[in-house]
């Protein structure tokens, strides 16, 4: 995200006139454009059936569809579109594309990439198409209906896969091109969030201002620079028959400190407010299993730092939503509601900083 999602100029901008941004992504228009795109690129007639929006997320829009070719064979596919009015627009499709390309055939399961267009082609917005993966996506916010044994099996796989991801030598993959900010890319990322928070919004939070400076001045050296998923958590994978069959949502992937992914995964917000991973694996065991899987010794100090950083990022993302609603007059009530979460996030951030200092 740090390279692609945050507008890093950080300059105060004049408050725009109170107009509503147009809802530019029209599902019917996307469907028609997709059909034309597939017909052109496949060199034959392709019929799209069962086209439907899978999510109404704040960022990339996901559609599921079946592409039926002239010989009547069907392919179940997923289309992801980066909307021009998304929370972090303008978008680049490249982090996700590079991730799917780099990890194909590795021990990190990902959906197979079919095609992509950064310039949008017929659809008009950056997009990629990948193969549909059968299974369920667990909800991270609420207590799972699944039994403890089931969740433990999944949690252990989840940690093993993270270890495998962090073992990959990113320099040999297309993801190497994501390297930005020189040797201290981690510090540049914090600076980008600080710039984002410094933009005019309805509220200024003194603890975020002060804590952001502390993070920037105290960012630890990574044990080694690895691929970082950037949003590695319960809810960002597909499981099928007690197996994680695909890790999803690579839009925030970058190269950085592996502690970042571990800290993000441990956030209680993504574990139904539990301090245990998926509500079943204690923190000490998580660290032990991760170390074994990744071969990377976990530094308690770095983990504490990245746990504070996770909350700082969460606060900055919430403020992006607040800004979109309040300043840019983007009418999505979910964004307004995110504002109400700020006091609890900022308090948790202050406590996390105390632990990290």
């Amino acid at each position, binding site marked *: 995200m740090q390279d692609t999602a945050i507008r890093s100029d950080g300059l105060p901008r004049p408050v725009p006139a109170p107009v509503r941004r147009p809802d530019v992504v029209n599902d019917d228009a996307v469907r028609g454009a997709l059909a034309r795109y597939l017909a052109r690129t496949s060199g034959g007639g392709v019929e799209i059936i069962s086209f439907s929006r899978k999510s109404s997320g704040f960022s990339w829009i996901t559609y599921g569809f079946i592409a039926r070719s002239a010989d009547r064979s069907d392919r179940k596919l997923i289309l992801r579109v980066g909307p021009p009015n998304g929370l972090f627009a303008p978008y680049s499709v490249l982090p996700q594309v590079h991730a799917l390309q780099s990890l194909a055939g590795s021990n990190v399961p990902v959906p197979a990439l079919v095609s992509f267009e950064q310039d949008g082609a017929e659809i008009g917005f950056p997009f990629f198409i990948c193969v549909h993966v059968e299974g369920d996506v667990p909800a991270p916010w609420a207590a799972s209906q699944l039994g403890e044994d089931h969740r433990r099996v999944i949690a252990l796989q989840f940690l093993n896969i993270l270890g495998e991801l962090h073992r990959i030598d990113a320099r040999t993959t297309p993801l190497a091109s994501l390297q930005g900010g020189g040797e201290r890319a981690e510090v540049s990322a914090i600076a980008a969030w600080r710039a984002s928070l410094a933009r005019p919004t309805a*509220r*200024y939070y*003194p603890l975020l201002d*002060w804590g952001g400076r502390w993070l920037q001045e105290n960012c630890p050296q990574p044990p080694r620079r690895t691929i970082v998923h950037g949003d590695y958590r319960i809810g960002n994978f597909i499981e099928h028959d007690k197996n994680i069959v695909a890790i999803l949502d690579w839009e925030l992937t970058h190269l950085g400190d592996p502690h970042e992914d571990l800290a993000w995964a441990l956030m209680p917000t993504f574990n139904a407010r539990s301090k245990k991973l998926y509500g079943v694996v204690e923190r000490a065991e998580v660290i032990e299993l991760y170390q074994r899987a990744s071969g990377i010794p976990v530094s308690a100090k770095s983990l504490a730092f990245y746990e504070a950083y996770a909350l700082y990022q969460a606060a900055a993302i919430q403020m992006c939503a*607040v800004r979109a609603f309040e300043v840019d007059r983007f009418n999505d009530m979910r964004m307004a509601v995110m504002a109400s*979460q*700020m*006091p609890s996030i900022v*308090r948790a951030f202050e406590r996390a900083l105390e632990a990290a200092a």
Partner: protein
Amino acid sequence: MSASFERLIEGIIDALQTHIVPNNGDDFVRGQVFSAIYALNGLKLAADWKPGPLLDQVRLQDDAFAAVRQQANGMDHPPIPATPRIARENAEAAQIEALRDDGDRLLGQLLLWASGEGARTADPDAANEIERLLRRAICDQLKIELATTPKSMLQQIAGGDGDAARG
């Protein structure tokens, strides 16, 4: 809240008009929605945030300013406003909110100063104490906001899970 009262009401009305009304053909439901929009328009004209919690926050800030002034005596520090900053109990909520937001900025400047190199060199003990008391005061202020924050509905909001909302 980080959103302003008027903008919040406008957003609710717009969400109902844009997303709910066009997608519901039931006359009774549409009548309910338009009634809600009418009531919200009334609230927009007549209501505002409750001034009580905002006043409590401003008073906490004032206490922090007074304590910092005492601790920072003789040090070269960012501006500290004279307190109390609000004399009237019946001030309008928007005025108190603006004062609270202004106070947050001043507290931020003081916190950055107290934890910075200059203050720590000038008087490390005083700088530490000021940082500690400012952090505590700001957290106390957040507690007031938390008391007026409803229980999270993240699951329902993120997933549109109506059954969970009822449960």
